[in-house]
Structures are given as C-alpha cells and as structure tokens.
C-alpha cells in the first residue's frame, strides 16, 4: 500500500482527515467481544463498544480495571486473545503487517507519562512524519543534518510541526531541549507529536493525570478540537469531572468488564448498572479490608 504522507505539505490546520487519507470518512473503531489475557489470567472479558468519528468516549474505572490494556488493544499494540477489533469493519489482525501498518498510522496514541526522545522538541513532534518518509528522503535528511544549515538551505523547523505545537500552545518551544520542559509541557509535546500526523482515531491513556489545571485545560481544548475535526477520541481517565466535562459517552470498566456505556448525564446521575452507581459514589474505590486500622 502506498503512503501519501510524503507528498502532503499542506498546513495542518487546513487539512481535514477526510481529504487526507485513503478512506472517504475518518475511521470508526469497533470492539466485538474483545478479551485479553496473559499467562491464563484474563484482564479484559468480552468488551464490546463502538467509537464513532467525531466522538469523545471516556473510559473510567479504578486502577487495575484494564483501561490501559483496552487502549493498547485499540491502538493495535497488542492482539486480543478473543473477539475482534475492527477499523471501518476491517480486522487489522487479519491483515498483513504492511496493511496493518496503514491502519496503525491512522491512529495516534498518547501515554500517561510523556516519553520524549533525546532530541529538540521539533524533532520529537515530527518523528511520526519522518518515519512515513520513503528511505531516500530519510537518508537525505540524515545527511543534511550532518552539514551546516547554510549549505543545505533546509529550514530549521517546518510549518506543520509548528502548527501541531500551536495546537498545544507551545509554538515557540520548537527548539527547546526536552530536559528543559516541565512535566506539563512535556506531555503537551507528546500530544502535539500525536496530532502532527493527523490521526483519525486518538487514543489517550490518562494524559492529564499528572498535570496542573492549566495544562489540563490546554490538553482538553486540543482534544475538543480533534473532535471538531471529526476525529474519534478514546480517553482513559481517573478524573470523573473531566469525563463529565468533555465526553460524549462514558464507558465504565470494572475488573475487566464493561458494565455500562452511556452519555455522562446517564452514567453519573442515573446509572443503569448498580456497580456503576457504586463506583461513581466511590464505594468501589477500596475494600474495607484495605483501609488502615
């Protein structure tokens, strides 16, 4: 399959997912009875859910419920041990590695901890685009970096990278060393890195769990902008207020089972499942036996 990223030089904000990629519409994600286990221990049991384009779905649940595993399955890091994941009706795990790569490259993932490479911010952000370049261009880019810029004439940073940084309020930080960034800034750079390749499905694993309110607000705004551009967002969070604030739908995951999916108003105010009600009230946060004497 042919990757068209290398020929696409339009500014990020002017490009829509619909006209960028191979399909006519941004991708839809569906999990059908998906299970996952390791060494005989089942972590997720028969999860079924669907993420539409232009939707923010939040996964809530206590630590150890399987949220991260669910997101890793959705982002095709792991293959389910049962059930099927479908993107636009296609099971990526039934495809060849190359064909699956095409789907993977339409998904963006941000992890709980910002993991930045030992390179300036701009190179962290444009890594996703660089891995999509054909090898001759990558080799040329590598060789150009060995020469002083005045000989190569290449710009220090390209506009698309700056556009991605602008979405998280860090346009001027493109030449900074990752070590000089605060935790919040580093996470925003991670987010810009995911956005820079215009993913049609954004998978976010508690991206704001370690952030202050200001950085959280900036990332939430970026998440909402992804929704405005018709991208699907799957977000795991411990923050009930955040889930209520930005979600279109909330999925409650308890002990590897999806117990309820619905709009925030339903899940938080009129839950249909008793376990959801207990979790929302905080009754499932700990067992009485776990409390200190």
């Amino acid at each position: 399959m042919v990757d068209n990223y290398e020929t696409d030089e339009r500014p990020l904000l002017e490009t829509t997912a619909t006209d960028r990629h191979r399909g006519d519409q941004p991708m839809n994600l569906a999990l059908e009875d998906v299970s996952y286990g390791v060494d005989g221990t089942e972590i997720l049991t028969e999860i079924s859910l669907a993420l539409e384009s232009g939707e923010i779905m939040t996964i809530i649940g206590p630590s150890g419920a399987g949220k991260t595993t669910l997101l890793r399955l959705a982002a095709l890091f792991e293959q389910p041990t049962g059930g099927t994941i479908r993107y636009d009706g296609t099971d990526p795990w039934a495809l060849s590695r190359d064909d699956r790569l095409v789907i993977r490259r339409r998904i963006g993932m941000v992890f709980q901890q910002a993991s930045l490479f030992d390179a300036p911010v701009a190179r962290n952000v444009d890594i996703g685009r660089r891995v999509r370049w054909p090898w001759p261009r990558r080799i040329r880019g590598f060789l150009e970096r060995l020469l002083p810029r005045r000989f190569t004439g290449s710009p220090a940073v390209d506009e698309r990278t700056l556009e991605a940084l602008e979405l998280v309020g860090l346009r001027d930080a493109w030449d900074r060393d990752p070590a000089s960034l605060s935790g919040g800034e580093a996470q925003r750079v991670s987010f810009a890195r995911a956005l820079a390749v215009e993913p049609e499905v954004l998978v976010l694993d508690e991206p704001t769990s370690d952030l202050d309110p200001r950085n959280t607000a900036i990332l939430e705004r970026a998440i909402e902008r992804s929704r405005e551009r018709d991208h699907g967002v799957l977000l795991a969070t411990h923050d009930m207020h955040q889930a209520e604030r930005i979600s279109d739908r909330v999925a409650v995951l308890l002990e590897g089972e999806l117990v309820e999916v619905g709009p925030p108003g339903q899940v938080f105010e009129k839950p249909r499942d008793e376990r959801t009600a207990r979790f929302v009230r905080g009754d499932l946060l700990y067992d009485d036996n776990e409390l200190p004497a």
Partner: protein
Amino acid sequence: MPFELITEPNYLRSVIRVSLTVSLTAIFVSTLVSLPIAFLIGFADFPGKRLVTAIINTGMGFPSVAVGLFVLLFISTDGPLGSLDLVYTPEAMIISQCILAAPVITGVALSAVESVDDAVRDTAYGVGGTRTDVALITLKEARYGVITGILAGFGRAISEVGSVLIVGGNIAYADGTSKTRTITTAITFETRRGEFETALALGAVLIVLVLLVNGIVMRLGGR
C-alpha cells in the same frame, strides 16, 4: 634515546600506521558484528537470554595472551586456517583484536539498549514506526552507551600487547619500519632494550592517539 623517534620519523610513522590500521579495522569489523547481536539479544526474549548475556560479559575479561594463543593455533600451519598463511601478519592481529573487542562492544551496547525505557519503544511504535524504525529510534536513544562500548572496545584493542605479540611477532623490516610492530609492542621492545625514554615517548603518542580518536567519535556521536 627518545629523540631517535624524531630523527627516524619513518619508524614512528610506520608504528602508528600499523597500530591504527590494525585497531581501527578490528573495531570496524567488531562493531559490524557486535551491534546487530546486541540488538537481537536486547530486543528478543528467549530462554537462556541471561546465560548468553553472562557469556558475553565473561568475554569482556578474556585474557589477551590466551586469545593470542588460541588464534595462533587456528592460523598456524597445522591449524584449520593454516592455508591462509596469516601467522605474523597484521591480519592475524586484526583477528585477535576482533575477538578481544567484540564482547566489550556487544556487552556495553547490550546494556545500553536494554536500559532504554520501554516507553521509548512504545512511543516509536505508537507514532507509526515499523520494527526497523523502533530499532533505529532505540539505537539513537542508546547512542551514548553504544559509542561508549565502541570506544571501550577501541581502548581494549589499541592498548593490547599479549595477543598481538603472539600472533604478530613484533616484526620490523630491515630499514626499521614496522611490519607488525604496534605502539604497545614497540614500548615493550624499547623497554627491554633499556630505551626507557623512547618507550615513554611512544606511550605519550599512544595516549594522544586514543584521546584523538575518542574526541572524533564523541563529536560524531553529538556529545
């Protein structure tokens, strides 16, 4: 008589040339072999991985004279490589230095690769990287450790005496220029002759060369 080196620059030049040619070639070959091995072991999970790692680490401490003897047995007339007529040649010295340097480069590079956080690999995969991309990004993140390994291997090779003496023979031509005489074996030779000043001067040259090579490699590595 240290100034003999200056009055006979051909001698000094030929010794330096042999030392650098042998050691840099050995390091080049060792690096080509060692880095893929380090990556394969670092990325793969297989039964016996700890044993393999332990064997590599043991290899870092191979006694050089034992390696020299081992290589000599292999390349001597009755050995399996006897037909190649390698005894007392720079090629034989390259082989022995490869054997000494490879475990050092592999071991240090392996440690560097394994110390790269799993999150880096996840991130490389998550941005749409192929397995090759993930490996290259991991290599880039581990580059300082890998460079350290290569430099440690170079240090081991160029400062080596025992095995190159055995397989190379410390031979100089009739005009005094070196055939298989390296800086280290020349130091040994001059010391035996009581030419301590010459030996000291050669030692200084060796230190300068090592500093120079380290500086160039570190610079190329971006540090």
